[in-house]
């Protein structure tokens, strides 16, 4: 009986009902799209910010003071300390291996080129190691530009003699791509000229194994730059881990704060000390926090609007049907039944609109994501369900108040007005 009532009521004046469903659908579409885009904006921005370069520097614990000015080393290589190259991939053995997006080991040797003092830095450009994807300075610093070509060092090759010249050095000494350059008694081919704007422009970059050979330090590196995706430091992150309770310590250890990642790298390589590069790390955290907050507030605004839109659409529907309610009361229907009938209708409209809106919203979010970030959307399957439930709740809430007032009305005047 009740089911038939609902079915008949829904079949009547379909245009009006479609408009209501459409309003709910539009509102749910905003909610879905905004949420879907904003939920993972933190991760996306975090990845963008990684193009600033390394945010952690791993050095030997007992390293002597660097005597370096603008990338040029003024100390003989002999009294430096080193990390074994075999320890370098252990950086990826930490709990946070997936957060470590790239790393690059370095070993420098002071050299002289064209009367200019400079440093020959050996590093990984894009090196395959172990099982993971290749890594090196190219992954770590996507903003570096090279004129000519990169050194392709997927596999180690200790007989190759090629280098990249920093742009500032190249201009000063007059080095061009394809030149032959004599460094430490060996003839090198200049593969490319590197411009970064930073101190690397005063250096020569070559394969790690070449620098190791020439410096007589085979299998050793002087420092490792690490780029890690981090969670911005909060008050908890600034606590001293030595003074935490075991539960707090577990939580700290299992959160990708820069501090806990550094700590775990030191666990893996006991001879090394990992330090945050504050210029990158500190600002990264702050900007991430602010962008998250911005997006949360914007989505809250959109959410409230969507709820109000649904609410007003439902309230309008009930207001329009006051005479219908009056007729039902006049023929003896109880308030409970009428209320239930309208609630079921509102719920169904909410669900239908919510479902339509969720689908439309996902489509919109996907295209926004492709347009702006050129990458596919990571969508949580929970989101559409949440949106539909919220739409139903907003629809019920929207029809509740005008429903109550409609049920309280005197039947006769309403019917007279309707006639």
């Amino acid at each position, binding site marked *: 009986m009740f089911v038939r009532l609902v079915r008949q009521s829904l079949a009547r004046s379909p245009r009006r009902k479609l*408009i209501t469903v459409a*309003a709910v659908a*539009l*509102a749910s579409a*905003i909610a879905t*799209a905004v949420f879907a*885009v904003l939920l993972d904006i933190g991760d*996306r*921005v975090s990845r*963008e*910010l990684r*193009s*600033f*370069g390394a945010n952690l520097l791993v050095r030997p614990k007992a390293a*002597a*003071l*660097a*005597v*370096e000015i*603008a990338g040029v080393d*003024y100390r003989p290589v002999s009294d430096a300390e080193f990390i074994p190259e075999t320890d370098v991939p252990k950086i990826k053995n930490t709990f946070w291996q997936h957060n470590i997006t790239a790393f690059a080991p370095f070993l420098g040797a002071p050299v002289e080129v064209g009367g200019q003092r400079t440093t020959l830095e050996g590093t990984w450009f894009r090196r395959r190691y172990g099982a993971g994807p290749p890594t090196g300075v190219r992954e770590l610093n996507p*903003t570096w530009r090279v004129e000519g070509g990169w050194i392709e060092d997927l596999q180690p090759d200790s007989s190759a003699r090629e280098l990249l010249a920093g742009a*500032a050095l190249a201009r*000063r000494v007059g080095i061009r791509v394809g030149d032959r350059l004599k460094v430490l008694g060996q003839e090198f081919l200049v593969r490319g000229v590197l*411009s*970064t*704007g*930073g101190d690397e*422009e005063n250096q020569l970059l070559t394969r790690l194994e070449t620098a190791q050979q020439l410096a007589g330090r085979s299998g050793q590196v002087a420092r490792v730059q690490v780029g890690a995706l981090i969670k911005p430091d909060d008050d908890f992150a600034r606590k001293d881990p030595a003074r935490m309770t075991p539960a707090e310590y577990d939580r700290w250890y299992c959160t990708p704060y820069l501090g806990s990642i550094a700590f775990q790298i030191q666990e893996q390589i006991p001879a090394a000390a990992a*330090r945050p*590069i*504050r*210029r*990158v790390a*500190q*600002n990264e955290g*702050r*900007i991430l926090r*602010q*962008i998250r*907050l*911005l997006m949360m*507030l*914007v989505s809250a*605004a*959109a959410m*409230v*609007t969507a709820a*109000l*839109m649904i609410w*007003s*659409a439902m*309230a*309008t529907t009930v*207001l*329009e049907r006051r005479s219908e309610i009056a007729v039902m009361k006049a023929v003896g229907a109880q308030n409970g039944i009428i209320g239930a009938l309208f609630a079921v209708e509102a719920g169904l409209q909410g669900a239908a609109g919510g479902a339509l809106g969720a689908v439309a919203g996902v489509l919109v979010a996907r295209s*926004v994501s492709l*347009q*702006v970030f050129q990458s596919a959307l990571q969508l949580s399957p929970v989101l559409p369900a949440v949106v539909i439930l919220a739409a139903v709740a907003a629809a019920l809430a929207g029809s509740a108040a*005008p429903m109550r007032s409609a049920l309280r009305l005197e039947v006769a005047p309403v019917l007279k007005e309707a006639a």
Partner: protein
Amino acid sequence: MILRLAARALWERRQRAGLALAALTVAAALATSLVGLYADIERKLRGQFRGYGANLVVAPAGDRRTLPVDWVVAAESYGPAAPWLYWVETVEGEPVVLAGVDFRRVEPLAGYWQVSGRRRPVAGECLAGERVAERFRLRVGSRIGSWQVAGIVSTGGAEDSQILLPIEQVARRAGLAGAASLIAARVDGSQAERARWELAARLPQAEVRLLRAVVESEAAVVLKIRGTLLLLTLLTLVITGLCVMNNFGAIVHQRRKEIGILKAIGGADRRIAALLGVEVGALAVAGSLAGFGLGWWITRWLGWEIFRQPAPPPLESLPLVLAVTLLVALAGTAAPLLRLRSIEPAVTLRGE
């Protein structure tokens, strides 16, 4: 006459009119705050990137070893700039880099430095880099060479292995009066390329470089956030606009009977349309003004909550918001108004 009729009609249907008004207010508030936020977002976000410090470096070119320290003034016309002078000296038996710094000028570029102790040493004092402090077991107040340690600085960069002194002192020790090794500057990220070329033209004997990582990451993040915000703003506005149109359409649609009566007693189509238009217009103006006020307040609150900067009053967007809300409301009413002519009093009044 029309005004009185309209006011009366609105009052009689205050519940329905109230709903439409509420929907319009919310839409206008949303429009104001999103447009206000969007208009200012680039400036605000770029402001946040100031913390990264210098993004432009002026270095000596050719055979020059140093730059005249006065060139900092040229760089300063594009933003905060500071000269640095480096000198290696043996301190307590070990070679250490002495960095000459203009502590007053470097302050806006050094937001990320962590200093325990004082940030600005006075005569006879220095700042010690963290690694220097470790090496020589220094604390704030202890002595190294002929200086007293005023503070210990930690940056994770080159400064950690240096002793930071006022630049004139380093210049005197090095015999390089009035010289700088480089000048670091922070220029407006959106004007970085222009600043670079203009500076390079003004200082032909120097090399002017942009720190690629800083400039490019800033641009990427700012543009992407702005793009996301723009698309979401447009989307939200279009959808709320549709909802408001729907709401206003319903107002007219529901009153077919009344319109039928008006026509039956001889009301001309145009007069009836004017009556409805005045009603809708009054609602729309009230809703958009209220919404604008609310939206302004939200924008200010958002600006303060997120960026800790007061937002400028978005007064220039008032006419725009007003015009758009009016347009949306009128567009919603236009369709049913156009159908006025087709309303046959006899049919409508019979209730069909």
